């Protein structure tokens, strides 16, 4: 599954225009606690969160996350998006709740499809 597949699945909008979404991703780490992201996420995960501050971008960079999904219709401000662009970290914004976004991704995984 690529980031682009996930964007379509969540009806999401790419906020960091120009960043490639064709990267394959296999793991999602969903949390609003950056402390937990730092302690427990695996490299190559997508970070899903309801937080929209610059620390989300910095945390994503430091843990080698492939991208950020911002849930619940929240939108980071332009400074945060600019920081993500500088670091080449894609941000996708979706109106889904964290639970709904995780559910949709889970249901679309091979083996879980109806």
């Amino acid at each position, binding site marked *: 599954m690529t980031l682009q597949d996930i964007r379509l699945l969540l009806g999401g909008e790419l906020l960091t225009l120009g960043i490639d979404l064709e990267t394959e991703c296999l793991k999602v780490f969903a949390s609003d606690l950056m402390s937990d992201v730092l302690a427990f996420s695996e490299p190559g995960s997508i970070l899903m969160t309801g937080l929209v501050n610059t620390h989300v971008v*910095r945390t994503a960079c430091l843990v080698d996350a492939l991208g950020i999904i911002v849930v619940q219709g929240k939108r980071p401000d332009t400074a945060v998006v600019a920081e993500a662009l500088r670091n080449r970290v894609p941000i996708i914004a979706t109106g889904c709740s964290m639970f709904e976004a995780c559910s949709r991704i889970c249901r679309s995984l091979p083996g879980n499809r109806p």
Partner: protein
Amino acid sequence: MTETASFQQEFKVKGGDFSRGGEASCEIKNLLRDLGLDPHLVRRAAIACYEAEMNIIMYAWQGRLDLLVTPHRIRIIAEDKGPGIPDIKQAMREGYSTATPEMRELGFGAGMGLANIKKNTDTFRIRSKVGHGTRLELTIKTNGRKA
């Protein structure tokens, strides 16, 4: 210090400056990556640096991160002037936190910081004096491992 340094740089960190929190660690990560070190080691060093940097920002008045890279290890010293830690054993316990609501709103303060620094480093030394500050001495062995 008898080892030959390949690279050394100091980064100042200002207590309370949440908006710049993580900048030094991102810079350190980029430097380590540009030195061609193994990405797994770079990630561990970056996480340890970020936790240490945020601890300075959240709890201390001022501090610094000192990065030294030799052919066999990455050494990070995080030193601050601040209130210090009265009970290091308690502070090391996962889940123990004295974070304020402001810190929690940013996604920090889960009480994982020091334990996570220890987890991501090969040697971990901590000294603290109440009313003066805290010093962490961390190393990650690289043994010349490149990307």
